[in-house]
C-alpha cells in the first residue's frame, strides 16, 4: 500500500460520491478564496505603501536637523547650549560626506517667503538646494521642464501643490471633470509646459539692526524689517502629492542653494535657530539630507549622527511601525478567512464521518483481508488531503478571480474620480504556498478524528452488516 495507492483510492471514493465531495470541496474553495483575497488585499495595501516609499528614495535617506529644544526642560536650560553645539554648516556637511556608509549629503536652506505668480500670491517656506540633488530618486517627479541647472541663477522648481495655492491647475485628461465642478472659475487651467520660463516673484523680509535702533528712538520712518523681491525663472514643475511620502515642508519651491545664500533674509525661521544664533553657532542649513550607500548603513550612520549631537529622522525606521500596523491589518483579514476555513473543516469532518458510516462494511472487509489500522487511516487521510489540495487550488483560482473582478470594479470608480488606477491586490508567493499547505493541513486535522474512528471499527461487527 503506497501513498500513490491511497491517493488513487481517495480519488475513486470521492468520485463515487461526487456531489457530496464537490460540495465539501466547494466549502474549502470558498474558505481558501476568502482567506486569499482578504490577505491579498492587505498585502496589496502594504505593497502600495512600501513601494511608494521605496521608489521615492526616501528609504536610504536620513534627515538631520539641529538638536530639538526640549520644551519640558526648565527655561534656563534653553541657554545651556552644550547639547546643541553643532552647527549645520559646510564643515559639518563635509564631515558627514566623509563618514563611512554615507554615499551623499546635501544641505538645504529653508526660509519663509511670499511668492507671486500672475495675480495671485501665497506664503511658503522655500528650499535652497544643490542642483546636483536633482539626480537623486526623490526628485524624479517632474511634469515638465528640468531640475535646477545652475547654482548661481535665479531658477525655481515649483510643485503642483504650490500652483494650486496660486489658483493654477495643470491641464490634463482628468481635468475636464474638475473644470466642470469649478463653476466659480477660481482656477486658471494651463499646461505644465507653458509655465516653463515664466517669472515667479519671491519676496523675503530682511532685518536691519540700524533701522531697529532708529525705530526704538522714535523715528516713524524707520522699519527694521525690509522686503526684497527676487525674480525667479520657472525651470521645472513637480507633481507633489501632499498625501504622499514625497511631501515634505519646503518642497513646494526649490531654488539653487548658491542663489538662496545671496538672498537677504531674516536669517532664522524657527525659535531653535534664534536661540542658536545667540549662542554663537551659526546654522547655514535648515536641514542636511544624508543618503546612505545601502539600507544596512542606515542604522550605524544614524547612531553616529546622533552621537554628534544632531537630531536625526529616518523614514525607513518609521517603516517598521508601518509594517507592524499592516501585520495587524493582515492578521484581522486573515482571521476572517480563517473562520471560513474552519467552517470548511467542519464540512470535511462531516463528509468523512458520513462516508465512514456508509462504508463500515467495506472497512470491515479491508481489515479481514489484511488492512492495518494505519492503512485504513491512510485511506481517509488520503481523501481529506485530496479535498484539501483540490479545494486549495480551486480557492486560489477563486480568490484570484474575485480580486481581479473587485480590482476592475474599484479601479473603474477610481478612474471616474480622475485618479490613476492602482493594483489593489497582491499575491506574494508565501500566500499561495501557505494557503495550499494550510488547506491540506486543515483537511488532515479534520480527517484526524474520522480516520481514527474508521480504524477502530470492529471488523466482526462491520462484516455482520448487510
Amino acid at each position, binding site marked *: *500500500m503506497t501513498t*500513490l495507492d491511497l491517493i488513487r483510492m481517495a480519488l475513486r471514493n470521492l468520485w*463515487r460520491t461526487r456531489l457530496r465531495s464537490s460540495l465539501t470541496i466547494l466549502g474549502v474553495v470558498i474558505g481558501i478564496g476568502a482567506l486569499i483575497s482578504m490577505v491579498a488585499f492587505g498585502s496589496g495595501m502594504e505593497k502600495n505603501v512600501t513601494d511608494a516609499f521605496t521608489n521615492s528614495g526616501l528609504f536610504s535617506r536620513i534627515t538631520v536637523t539641529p538638536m530639538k529644544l526640549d520644551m519640558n526642560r526648565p527655561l534656563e536650560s534653553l541657554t545651556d547650549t552644550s547639547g546643541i553645539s553643532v552647527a549645520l554648516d559646510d564643515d559639518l556637511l563635509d564631515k558627514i560626506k566623509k563618514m563611512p556608509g554615507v554615499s551623499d549629503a546635501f544641505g538645504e536652506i529653508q526660509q519663509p517667503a511670499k511668492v507671486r505668480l500672475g495675480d495671485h500670491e501665497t506664503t511658503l517656506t522655500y528650499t535652497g538646494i544643490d542642483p546636483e540633488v536633482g539626480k537623486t530618486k526623490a526628485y524624479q517627479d517632474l511634469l515638465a521642464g528640468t531640475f535646477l541647472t545652475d547654482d548661481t541663477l535665479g531658477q525655481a522648481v515649483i510643485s503642483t501643490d504650490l500652483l494650486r495655492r496660486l489658483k493654477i491647475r495643470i491641464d490634463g485628461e482628468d481635468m475636464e471633470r474638475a473644470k466642470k465642478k469649478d463653476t466659480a472659475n477660481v482656477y486658471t487651467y494651463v499646461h505644465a509646459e507653458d509655465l516653463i520660463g515664466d517669472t515667479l516673484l519671491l519676496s523675503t523680509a530682511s532685518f536691519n539692526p540700524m533701522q531697529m535702533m532708529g525705530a526704538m528712538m522714535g523715528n516713524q520712518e524707520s522699519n527694521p524689517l525690509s522686503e526684497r523681491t527676487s525674480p525667479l525663472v520657472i525651470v521645472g514643475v513637480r507633481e507633489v502629492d501632499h498625501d504622499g511620502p514625497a511631501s515634505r515642508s519646503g518642497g513646494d519651491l526649490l531654488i539653487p542653494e548658491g542663489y538662496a545664500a545671496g538672498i537677504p533674509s531674516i536669517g532664522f525661521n524657527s525659535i531653535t535657530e534664534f536661540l542658536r544664533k545667540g549662542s554663537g553657532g551659526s546654522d547655514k542649513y535648515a536641514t542636511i539630507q544624508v543618503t546612505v550607500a545601502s539600507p544596512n548603513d542606515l542604522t550605524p550612520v544614524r547612531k553616529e549622527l546622533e552621537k554628534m549631537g544632531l537630531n536625526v529622522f529616518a523614514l525607513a525606521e518609521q517603516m517598521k511601525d508601518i509594517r507592524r500596523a499592516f501585520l495587524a491589518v493582515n492578521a484581522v483579514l486573515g482571521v476572517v478567512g480563517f473562520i471560513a476555513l474552519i467552517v470548511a473543516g467542519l464540512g470535511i469532518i462531516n463528509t468523512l464521518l458520513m462516508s465512514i458510516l456508509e462504508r463500515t462494511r467495506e472497512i470491515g472487509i*479491508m481489515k*479481514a*483481508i*489484511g488492512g492495518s*489500522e494505519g492503512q485504513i487511516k491512510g485511506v481517509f487521510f488520503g481523501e481529506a488531503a485530496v479535498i484539501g489540495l483540490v479545494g486549495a487550488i480551486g480557492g486560489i483560482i477563486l480568490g484570484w478571480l474575485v480580486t481581479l473582478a473587485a480590482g476592475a470594479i474599484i479601479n473603474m470608480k477610481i478612474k471616474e474620480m480622475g485618479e490613476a488606477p492602482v493594483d489593489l491586490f497582491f499575491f506574494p508567493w508565501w500566500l499561495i504556498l501557505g494557503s495550499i499547505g494550510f488547506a491540506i493541513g486543515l483537511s488532515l486535522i479534520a480527517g484526524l478524528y474520522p480516520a481514527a474512528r474508521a480504524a477502530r471499527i470492529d*471488523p*466482526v461487527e462491520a462484516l455482520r452488516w448487510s
Partner: protein
Amino acid sequence: MAFIEIDHIRKIYRKATVTVPAVNDMSFAIEKGEFLAIVGKSGSGKSTLLNLLGGLDTPTTGEIRFDGSNLFAEGKDGLVKHRRHRVGMVFQSFQLIPNQTAAENIELALAFGGVTRAERKSRALELLGQVGLAERADHYPTELSGGEAQRVAIARALANDPDIILADEPTGNLDTQNGDIILNVLQDLHRQGRTIIMITHDPDMARVAQRTIRMQDGQLMDTL
C-alpha cells in the same frame, strides 16, 4: 505439537446483566493440511470461533497457537500479519467491495500484502484463472452470480498465498449446483496442501471433510 492448538478458548459477550458465552472453553487441535468441517445449531458459536481463528476477534481468555506461538501475544500487529499472510477468509455473503471490479477486489488484498502495483494486475488475473473466472476480471460484484462472486472471494482469500482457508458457510447463499462448484474449489485447495476449516449447515458438505466437529452452546460436542 499440532499445527493449530486451540487451548481453553473462551469468548464471552457481556451486555448489561446478560452474559453470552459464545465460545465457552474449547480445546482441540487441527493438523496441517487437514480439511475440518464445523457444524452446529444456529447460535452455537461457530462463527465466533472462526473469527478468533482468523484473528478478526480476540478471546476473553485462552490461547490459539499456530506452530506453537500464541496468535494473540503480539497484539494488533500480530493479528494484522496473521490476516494478511497466514489465513484467507471466505464468508457466506461473499463480502466483496461493491464498487470495485473482481480484479480490483483481489488487487486490494495484494496491496495490503505488499505486492507492487506492477505485479498486482497479473497476479489478480492468475488467481481469477485458478477459479475459472479470468474473463470476468473487469466485472463488478453486482454483475456476477452468487457462485461467481464466491469464487472471486476465494481467489481474493488466496491472494497472499495463505496456508489456511477459513470459510464461514461459503455455500450458504448458493444453490446446490453452485455450492458444489465452491466445494470443488475448496477441495482443490485442500489437495494443494492447504488447511481448510469450513463452517456448514449441510451434512452433505461436511462429508467431504476429513473430520467434522459439532458445536453446541459454545462448546465442542463431539467429533464425527
